[in-house]
């Protein structure tokens, strides 16, 4: 296995981009659909729950032999059979994220930016750089993410400010409980899967030089991504108040199209699109890398690279499975963002628990 080390900044940046890339997809609309004017509360609850993934991953890694990734640690704790089953779930999770996000981003490009370009050409045009970046490995991805994260977050902040200055609806967040208190609170728990991508830390943490660097990287990642996810939902509701908020295809893109400061500053979406596409490519590359790493570690392969290109082909094949854009978004919302936290919180938590029990039993025996 390639065991090049990465720093705290690279680790945090990979996590941030992997988590926040969904802000360029219809996720704010999905939150508005279920929470109405209280969509921001759902995002807030989800953000407050994201440390659970971090604590469980840390717990799992601490109860395995040093330098193990989440995949290796899961197998070590659960044993080869059950461990492989859980790892297969992890693989399915990373792989599903990759092909669904590829499809959703391609649909975005096809519907708003490149309406005449065939869909498969857009997908292939995205898939090739994704595979190349994933092939370059985690170290290269980390460096690239570190240089791109600032640009992406800055572009988001500028668009949000521009949107607010163009249209600001007073009292847009009221009624406070939106579609109802119990619904908002329960959906806040379900939508903790918005941060399921935190699972990538299962691969990143073992690459850090010292275990003392783990919390720093994790908390930086959680703070920045929680802020970004929350603030985009929050501002979206002010610029596109309910019920308009539930009718837009790609909220952030529409927000960027709305920005207008007189004659000279308008039509800014093409400027921001560059950084957003970088974000999409990097997210997909991380997803592809994680899928490949999970698979190679399950198969005990010494390297990740041989799996990258075959998997990329598989990603392409699966991304055309949804019959339409709506179906792809539906799969994302109804499956990935509903049951995602079972994978990102549930399995690591169970593994951690088992690891603790096993450690205690081992301690008693000795």
């Amino acid at each position, binding site marked *: 296995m390639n065991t090049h080390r990465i720093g705290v900044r690279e680790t945090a940046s990979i996590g941030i981009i992997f988590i926040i890339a969904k802000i360029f997809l219809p996720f704010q609309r999905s939150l508005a659909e279920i929470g109405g004017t209280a969509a921001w509360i759902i995002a807030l609850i989800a953000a407050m729950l994201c440390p659970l993934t971090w604590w469980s991953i840390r717990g799992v890694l601490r109860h395995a032999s040093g330098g193990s990734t989440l995949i290796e640690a899961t197998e070590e704790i659960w044993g080869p059979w059950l461990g492989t089953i859980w790892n297969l779930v992890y693989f399915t999770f990373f792989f599903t994220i990759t092909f669904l996000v590829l499809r959703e981003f391609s649909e975005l490009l096809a519907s708003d930016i490149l*309406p005449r370009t065939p869909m498969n050409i857009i997908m292939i045009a995205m898939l*090739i*750089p994704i595979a190349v970046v994933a092939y370059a490995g985690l170290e290269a991805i980390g460096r690239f993410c570190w240089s791109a994260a600032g640009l992406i977050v800055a572009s988001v902040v500028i668009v949000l400010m521009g949107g607010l200055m*163009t249209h600001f609806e007073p009292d847009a967040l009221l*009624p406070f409980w939106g579609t109802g208190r119990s619904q908002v609170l329960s959906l806040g728990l379900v939508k903790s899967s918005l941060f399921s991508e935190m699972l990538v830390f299962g691969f990143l943490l073992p690459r850090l030089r010292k275990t003392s660097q783990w919390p720093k990287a994790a908390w930086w990642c959680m703070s920045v991504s929680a802020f970004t996810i929350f603030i985009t939902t929050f501002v979206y509701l002010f610029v596109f108040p309910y*019920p308009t908020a539930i009718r837009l295809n790609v909220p952030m893109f529409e927000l960027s199209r709305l920005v207008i400061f007189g*004659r000279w500053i308008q039509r800014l979406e093409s400027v921001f699109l560059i950084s957003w596409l970088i974000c999409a490519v990097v997210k997909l590359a991380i997803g592809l890398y994680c899928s490949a790493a999970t698979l190679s570690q399950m198969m005990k392969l010494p390297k990740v690279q041989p799996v990258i290109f075959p998997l990329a082909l598989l990603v392409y094949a699966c991304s055309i499975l949804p019959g339409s854009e709506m179906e792809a978004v539906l799969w994302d919302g109804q499956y990935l963002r509903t049951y995602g936290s079972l994978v990102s919180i549930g399995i690591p938590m169970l593994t951690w628990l088992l690891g603790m029990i096993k450690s205690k039993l081992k301690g008693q025996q000795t």
Partner: protein
Amino acid sequence: MRRFLRAMLALPMVGLPLLSGCWDRLDPENMAFIMAVGVDPGPSSNFIYTFAVAMPKSSNAAAGGDSSGGSQEQIVDVFSQEASNLTAALMASQSYVARRLTLIHSKVFVLGESLARKGVMPVLGEVVRNDEFRRTVNVITTKGRADTFIHSIKPTMEKDINLWFELELDPHNIGAVTPHHSRFHDFIVDMEQPGTGATTILSAARPDIERGKARIADEDSDKKASQPIEGDQYAGTLHRSGETPIDFFGSAVYRGERMVGFLTAYETIMMNMLRGEFEKTTLEFRDPSDEKLTLSIIMSAQKKPDMDIKRNKDEIEVSFKVRMEGDLIGSFSKLDYTLPQNQKKLETSVEEQLRDRTSKILDKTMHQWSTDCFHIGNHVRATFPTLQDWYAFKWRDHIKETKYRLDIRFQMRRHGDQVGPAVEGDKMNLK
């Protein structure tokens, strides 16, 4: 050899993304930029779409246009197409327009009066889905037909159609006599809110001016008549001659998807004031020293108005606290308004007139038309715990019974470049 193989592999990787340009290339030479779209009801439950396309510079010269700026220069190409929706109209029009029609640079969406009175939601619902159509496009409701409006786009001074629209649709530029925001986004957001009255710029084509038949009445023999206030007019009724045969003056008010009436320029300014969107502008008032005379004040808002809502079950009371200030810029009065006692008299009179005018517009829109142009509903909504409760309340049904209070204050800050009135030498009286 290995390097060569790598380079050969890299070539399609680099080249493939660029291929997307082959399908979606935008060559301005081949494009027809639609600047304005007008919609009128059609003969068979469909619509008549009228397009104003920016005239390409080369075609303009070929059409006999005078590049030196002659008056015959055609700056837009206008055509109409009957169709059931905008996309179908564009598709059909493309058969006889050589260049590729595109909405990406469109500036205005014009709704004809009869369509506006029938209901505009079918048209808006279709247009908002179009990926070329931007939510920043301005919406205009025109008196009469939209195609007449589009055919009247004949600016005399400005030869750049894009600049002409930008300037004419900027409330700051045209004296704030239209709603502060009349963008498609604001229009449809208001329309989608229960009870909220969407507003657009009110416009009217002036064929009389185009034909040179507009006449301004000669000197009136009735010396006792009061001076009219210019702002108390609608688009289409301005006493003028010459220049572009289109008026942008006042606003059109909607109840739900249907237009219910027009507001004069003055009423529009009052509406902007209560909405907290007041743009510095000149307002005319009756002179307190002589009601027949008018005086002009450059008015600005001291701060955004406060809107306070009190809800007791179904009873709603809204209070507006407005703080304005201004500079006296035009006065016929012989009274010196710079003197403290006269200044106070003027301030009190302006406050009364503002209160009277805002009260009239609140009565007209809320109590007469049952529509909320002031976004009071947004604040009322805040008093409900959930959206279900808010929608069950049915704000529209309560608009008529809503009570209001007005607390308007005005302070005179400056008095232009002269202290006291100008007085004829013979009438000068030194005490």
